[in-house]
Every structure is written in structure tokens, then in C-alpha cells.
């Protein structure tokens, strides 16, 4: 049986570790449950902190390469220039490289979904028990919907403020692991929008007459077609009531 010290060492190394032994200990130890709650709040701040802005391509506001007391290597730039000068395929490479830095802005709706999910890391860790039916129904009521059992076990359900509207934010347990579902009844997309950003992979599907549905997973283990299948299964389990 795992003790508190071992449990805390494990969750400090990986707060989202889905090891069942950790869940077992957490469920049986109030102190460690409280400790985990505090750690996950810290993790939420950490996830927000790492989201520094990625400057747009060609952004000229570059920091100086040297300041007093700090030595920054300039070899990278020199090497690039040298390589470019020597490369026989310079025109092709420059054309590609130049275009790489253009239009790097990710889809704004997908980015907003990712940012929102990253701000609620605790949602992923509640996989042991289903959300009580009345609580789930209350979250879904605002979106005028019900969710059938085919979607999978719902382990997290909150009504979250997203771009000015409260929307259902769910975590559904699937054979591929926990999947976040956001029902964006006020956000329309004309076609399926796959995305891969900040360690999250997902897809936004149009829901004709009911905005759109965002489905996403953490990590890189699941391919785009599998994500689409999961999203379509969840979408098929939705019953609109209004």
C-alpha cells in the first residue's frame, strides 16, 4: 500500500499521473487529497505562466543580443548566414523559410479553447467517479441538451464562462483516456477544424443550429482520425432539447 510520502513524491513529479494506485491513495487519505488540490492549483498557475506569447513572424521588436553582464552567443545567426550563402538551394530554402514565418497565428477559436482548458488542469484528474446526474443535468441545461451514455463516463462537468457565454465544459472518460468536450453553442464553424497546439490535440466540429463542439486530448498519442471519431461519437450522443 502506498504511503503519503510516496504518493506526494509521485504527484510532485507528475500531478496528472493516472496511476490507479495514486487514485486509490488519494481517495482514502484526506490530507493527500487536500495536498493534491493545492498542487493542482499551483499547476494551473504554472500552465498559465508558461503560455508566453509567441511573437508573429517577422516581428521586428527583437531584444538586443547583448546586455551588460549577459553574454549571448551570436554563432547561430552567423551559421545561418554562412549556410545560406553556401547552399546551392538557397532560393528554394529562402522561399520556404520566409513563408514559414508568415501567417503563424493559430485559429483563434481553437486557441481560446486550448487556453481555457489549460487554465483548468484539475478537470483532467477527476477520473474516478462519474459526475452526479443532477449536477450534470444542471450544467447541460444551459445549452439545452442532454448527453447519452454512448459518450462515455462524464468525470467532470462545469458551466464555464467562455468568450462571454457560459458553456458546458466536460471531461469524458474514453478508451483513449480523458477527453475534454466544450459545447460552444454560440460559436459557429463552417467545417471541422483540427488543431494541435500547446500539447493539446483536438477538433472543433460544426453543430448545425447549435454552434460547435470542441473535443480535445492532451499529448500526442492519439491521431487526428481517432480524435475525429471520438468527437463524432460524443456529438452523436448529444440530444438537443431546445
Amino acid at each position, binding site marked *: 500500500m502506498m504511503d503519503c510520502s510516496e504518493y506526494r513524491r509521485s504527484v510532485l513529479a507528475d500531478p496528472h499521473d493516472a496511476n490507479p494506485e495514486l487514485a486509490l491513495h488519494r481517495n482514502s487519505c484526506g490530507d493527500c487529497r487536500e495536498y493534491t488540490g493545492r498542487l493542482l492549483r499551483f499547476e494551473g498557475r504554472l500552465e498559465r505562466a508558461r503560455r508566453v506569447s509567441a511573437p508573429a513572424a517577422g516581428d521586428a521588436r527583437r531584444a538586443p543580443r547583448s546586455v551588460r553582464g549577459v553574454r549571448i552567443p551570436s554563432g547561430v545567426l552567423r551559421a545561418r548566414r554562412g549556410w545560406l550563402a553556401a547552399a546551392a538551394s538557397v532560393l528554394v530554402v529562402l522561399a520556404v523559410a520566409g513563408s514559414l514565418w508568415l501567417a503563424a497565428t493559430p485559429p483563434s477559436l481553437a486557441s481560446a479553447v486550448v487556453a481555457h482548458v489549460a487554465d483548468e488542469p484539475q478537470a483532467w484528474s477527476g477520473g474516478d467517479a462519474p459526475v452526479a446526474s443532477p449536477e450534470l443535468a444542471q450544467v447541460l441545461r444551459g445549452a439545452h441538451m442532454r448527453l447519452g451514455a454512448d459518450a462515455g463516463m462524464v468525470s467532470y462537468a462545469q458551466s464555464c464562462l467562455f468568450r462571454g457565454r457560459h458553456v458546458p465544459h466536460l471531461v469524458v472518460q474514453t478508451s483513449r483516456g480523458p477527453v475534454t468536450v466544450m459545447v460552444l453553442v454560440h460559436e459557429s464553424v463552417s467545417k471541422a477544424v483540427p488543431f494541435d*497546439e500547446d500539447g493539446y490535440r483536438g477538433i472543433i466540429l460544426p453543430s448545425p443550429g447549435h454552434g460547435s463542439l470542441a473535443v480535445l486530448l492532451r499529448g500526442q498519442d492519439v491521431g487526428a482520425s481517432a480524435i475525429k471519431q471520438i468527437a463524432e461519437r460524443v456529438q452523436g450522443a448529444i440530444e438537443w432539447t431546445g
Partner: protein
Amino acid sequence: MKDDVGGNPKRARFQALCQALRPDLLRFAFWLSRDRALAEDVVQETMLRAWKAQDSLLDEAAAKPWFLTIIRREYARCFERKRLVTVDVDELIAREEPMLGAAQDQDIAELRAALFKLPEEYREPLVLQVLMGYSTAEIAAELKLSNAAVLTRLFRGRKQLRLMCGEDAALDPEE
């Protein structure tokens, strides 16, 4: 099938891949190097190298780890060419203010500063885990460490970070 990027589907695919991954790659390079200009240089050089070596990328689903490996190598090359002698982290933080952005709350600003101060051996696995969503096994493969060593570094890194941020670490376990 033709595309609108010079009529070259291969180039178009590669460009789309780079566009999708660039924000994450740049953030990773930034947290690794703690220097925005250097991060941009490293990412640009990475993409040039990736373009040259794109035939070795057999599965586009594996593109992100493939790019990250090139970034790490490219970053290491910087130090082979010219090793950093001294780094004043407070000055680094002040200099990187535009990239770090005006944090909406003081907590986040402090946490970013603490991340900057974390030793590289702890910062890198933590960034791979938190920023890139890597599992312990994936971090171990990327850093050529054992799973146990990665877990130890993550544990120590997070513990140091919490202490630097003034978190109540009294209940954190000893090693």
C-alpha cells in the same frame, strides 16, 4: 494535386506543418534558452534543417518530437560555438519582458521569473512535461535518461519552483 505555394504539394504540406507547430516550438525554445532572440534564431535554423531533412520524417504525427529534437541539438550547438560565461537572471528577466508579457497578476510574473531561475536540468524536463504535454517516457527518450531519473528531476524541479514561489512546502516529501 496542386496548391497555392508554388505548385509544390510537398512544400505546402511542410509549410502547413511548420505553421501549426511554430508557436509551441518557439515557446519551447524560449523556455529552454531564456532568450527571445536566440529562441527565434534557433527555431528558424531548426526549420531550415528540418526542410533539408524532411524525407527522414516518415510520420507527420511524429513531427513535434522530431522538431523538438532538432531544436535541442541546435540549441546545444550554440554552446559548442560560444559558451555562455555568466548569466544574470534578473537582467534576463528584465530583458525578456516583451516576450513574457505584462502578466495579469503578480503570481504569474513571479512564477515566470522562478522558471527562469530554475537550473536547466530541472527546467527542461518540466517544460517538456508542462508545455509540450510529454509523458515521462517521452521525456526520458528525448533527454536520454531513465524514467526514474526524469521523475527525480521533475520532482526536484517542481519542489524548487514551489519554494521559490513562496508556496507552503512544509508538506512536500523529503527525497
